[in-house]
């Protein structure tokens, strides 16, 4: 039953701005206290609308059926893509028997991380990919 211990967590989003376009990349939204290269990310979890209907600002979350059309790339503070195009679906906890995806802890460059649409499916403009970042301060 090993699982992550949450030290700090915060919801992070990437917004589909404009008409959803295949192969287009959408950067993570800026969160000032997470985007100063001052946190170590050690776990990540993603959500579909089946787990979270909307973000705090009322935007729609990607539908469960759309999660298979999106990949996630995370960059560290050296701009290395240490997670490169991981399927969004795989980051949803309930798809992994309840396990959160654990990472080797990295200082991340939040606003250079991005999601990419590989198949637009029914993704709509303004939808958001939502993640819970599990992190510690450097």
């Amino acid at each position, binding site marked *: 039953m090993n699982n992550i211990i949450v030290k700090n967590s915060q919801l992070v989003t990437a917004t589909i701005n404009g008409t959803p376009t295949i192969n287009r990349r959408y950067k993570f939204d800026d969160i000032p206290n997470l985007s100063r290269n001052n946190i170590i990310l050690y776990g990540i979890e993603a959500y579909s609308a*089946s787990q979270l209907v909307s973000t705090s600002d009322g935007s729609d979350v990607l539908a469960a059926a759309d999660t298979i059309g999106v990949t996630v790339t995370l960059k560290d503070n050296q701009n290395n893509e240490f997670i490169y195009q991981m399927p969004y679906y795989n980051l949803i906890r*309930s798809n992994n028997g309840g396990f959160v995806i654990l990472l080797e802890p990295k200082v991340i460059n939040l606003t250079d991380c991005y999601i990419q649409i590989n198949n637009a499916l029914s993704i709509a403009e303004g939808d958001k990919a939502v993640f819970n970042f599990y992190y510690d301060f450097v």
Partner: protein
Amino acid sequence: MGVVSNTEAYFLATGKTREYSDLVANNCETISVVIPKGGTQRIYLSQNSLLDSRVLTAIEVVTQGEQIYGYNPNGTTSENIPASSLPLFLFTLGKDNNEIIKTPFSSMHRPTQNGKFYFINSEVGRHRIGDSFIDQIGAGTYGSYIITLRFWYN
């Protein structure tokens, strides 16, 4: 490049690269919250000095599927929220400056997560139950339903 990075010192200080757990706790405390109305809202938890003075190890939310009824303050019972309502709710633990922020209920619901707990391991003095709150983020008429939160502690 003005990068603030002290990764190696962090690893030396903590002695480990990541922490995980398979131990829950010896005790648990249930907090029942009556949802006052339908629709979007924020509901603060009542102060709980017992939990404030214990090491919290894990949190879970209980739905009708595991326990049909939760408790009202007067001792009577009402239905717990159904599992289908979980995507509408978020929980923020008042830890330091709310550092475990807006966790979706679905992450804290064990049946959804194949039995896995949501471990937090919060030391005494870092969390305040009375500063913790629940957000309902969408329309949904769950007024008078009960949110049952189970806190595991040592």
